[in-house]
């Protein structure tokens, strides 16, 4: 008999019934934001966590995914859903331009290139009239039909995002257990050792980046679909990249449910600081984020899931073991 993965079942059920337990637009919106953040961070996790290639400019893929559908809407009135593939293709092109040169080099060039290219794209987009320059682009304000996917209620978005998140989890799960996933972990463990075992290091890093970029673009498209509006800061800003890095890193980079855990902690924290502190809250949120990132790097680079596995889970198991044997 195949063993049932109870943690998967529990997480799945919790996500499915969440909007029925916490009903009302406010909590449903938090749920949508958690899922969006978890999708983007899980996408980052493929290259940043599993392959160990730390991107600090993933906003460029997110932004490409957010802008392309709204651009096609602006030009030809295409529904946002139909423009999603264009956003994914744009992000794959950017990924190739960055990935091929930097993955042939060792060291930190990839991280440096990602932040530089993300900033380059942000400046260009902020000054390009076709893309709305500093103002950004709008989606359809009034739905022309169901295919425009403009709803008052949060629920359709919640379940759409949940479907995408589930797809991403299954892709990640498949990747973890495939030859590809083992190659990535070998690369993270030591590039020279991996290449001496015959792994084409740069090629697999590039594959990981492409997969990651495509899903990040999809997250960007979902964001554009949900808000119906994008501007350079909310799509290409450096804080978008930061959000993905910290969400995955806090939960546990290179672990399948790390990003979800990070999102469940950070999104409500951000909503709370913004609600309590008003406009000043945004700045304070990022001071806290910066502090969390430094502490994480210094004390617990494996994230909360590793902390759990190392120090709390063994204690629980020991107690269970004792109880079973005392009887």
């Amino acid at each position, binding site marked *: 008999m195949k063993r049932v993965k109870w943690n998967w079942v529990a997480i799945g059920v919790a996500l499915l019934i969440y909007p029925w337990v916490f009903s009302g637009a406010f909590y449903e919106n938090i749920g949508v934001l958690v899922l969006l953040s978890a999708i983007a961070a899980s996408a980052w996790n493929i290259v940043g966590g599993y392959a160990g290639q730390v991107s*600090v400019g993933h906003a460029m893929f997110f932004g490409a995914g957010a802008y392309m559908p709204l651009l096609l809407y602006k030009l030809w009135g295409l529904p946002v859903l139909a423009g999603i593939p264009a956003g994914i293709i744009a992000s794959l092109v950017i990924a190739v331009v960055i990935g091929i*040169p930097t993955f042939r080099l060792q060291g930190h060039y990839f991280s440096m290139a990602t932040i*530089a290219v993300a*900033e*380059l794209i942000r400046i260009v987009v902020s000054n390009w009239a076709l893309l709305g320059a500093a103002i950004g682009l709008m989606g359809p304000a009034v739905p022309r039909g169901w295919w425009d996917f403009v709803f008052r209620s949060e629920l359709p978005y919640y379940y759409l995002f949940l479907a995408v998140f589930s797809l991403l989890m299954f892709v990640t799960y498949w990747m973890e257990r495939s030859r590809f996933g083992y190659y990535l972990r070998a690369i*993270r463990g030591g590039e020279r050792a991996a290449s001496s075992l015959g792994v084409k290091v740069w090629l697999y890093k590039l594959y990981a980046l492409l997969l990651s970029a495509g899903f990040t673009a999809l997250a960007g498209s979902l964001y554009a679909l949900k808000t119906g509006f994008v501007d350079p800061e909310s799509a290409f800003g450096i804080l978008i990249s930061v959000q993905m890095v910290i969400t995955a890193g806090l939960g546990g980079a290179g672990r399948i449910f790390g990003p979800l855990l990070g999102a469940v902690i950070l999104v409500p924290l951000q909503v709370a600081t913004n609600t309590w502190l008003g406009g000043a809250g945004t700045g304070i949120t990022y001071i806290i*984020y910066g502090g969390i*990132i430094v502490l994480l*790097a210094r004390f617990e680079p494996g994230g909360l899931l590793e902390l759990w596995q190392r120090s709390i889970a063994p204690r629980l198991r020991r107690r269970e073991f004792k109880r079973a044997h005392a009887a």
Partner: protein
Amino acid sequence: MIFIQVIVGGLLLGAAYALFSSGLTLIWGMMNFINFAHGEFVMLGMYVAFLVVTYLAGGPAAFGLAAAVALFVLGAVIYVAVIRHVMRGPMLAQILSTFGLALFLRYSAFWIFSADFRTLPTTSLSGTIDVGGILISIPQLVAGAVAAALTIGMHLMLTRTKIGSQLLAVAEDRNAAMLMGIRPDRMQALAWGLSAASAGIAGALMATSYPFSPGVGETFVLTAFVVVTLGGFGSVPGAMLAGLIVGLIQALSAYYLGPIYKDVVVYALFVALLWLRPQGLLGTTV
């Protein structure tokens, strides 16, 4: 005439780029570690200068020195508190440590100083001189000259003094250096202090002629990446040359294409470099 003026302005700014980039390249070459918070060190140097001029009515020598000392201490403390513990850890921890630090410093500065652009109040260093029809502002001239002198001084210190040899010995082989009686942690703390101080002074020097806000650090760190990559991994003379080139490119592209594009051109140059010549001008291997 205006063309020569643009070139002179670019080279003077480039000298300041060379100074803070040589700080970044020192850490990179010595420890194979990229400091994403280096631009924030430049930004803090600007605000130290601002505070010293505003509240203590200090002159250029005073705020330059204050920025150097304050950032030296900050750099050494950051090394001891954080970097020492992450530098042999996973790549994720290395990058996140300074990236998080950059965010923390940037948004703390936004919180304390607000997002407004500031300029230093006029000091004894102001006015312009006319060299054969080319107008050069005195603060820019002094900043460029001091930055160039300090960069050359840093190179001489690394290559000609005992302490420089000790720093390079730790860079070459940490354990062998330890066996020779050099304390690697002390040397690396010193390197972080020097690196941050170079950024701080460069910031204080640039603050005399350019307006600044807490957000400027990001531009400077990316500029430093380009300069260091162009100059070649860990090479101070390379950073010097590349700093001047980048300053020149920025000045020319701002003049011919418009000020918005000065950074775009430089970042595009970075991508082109990675494709065509990742070892830089004076570098040998990657």
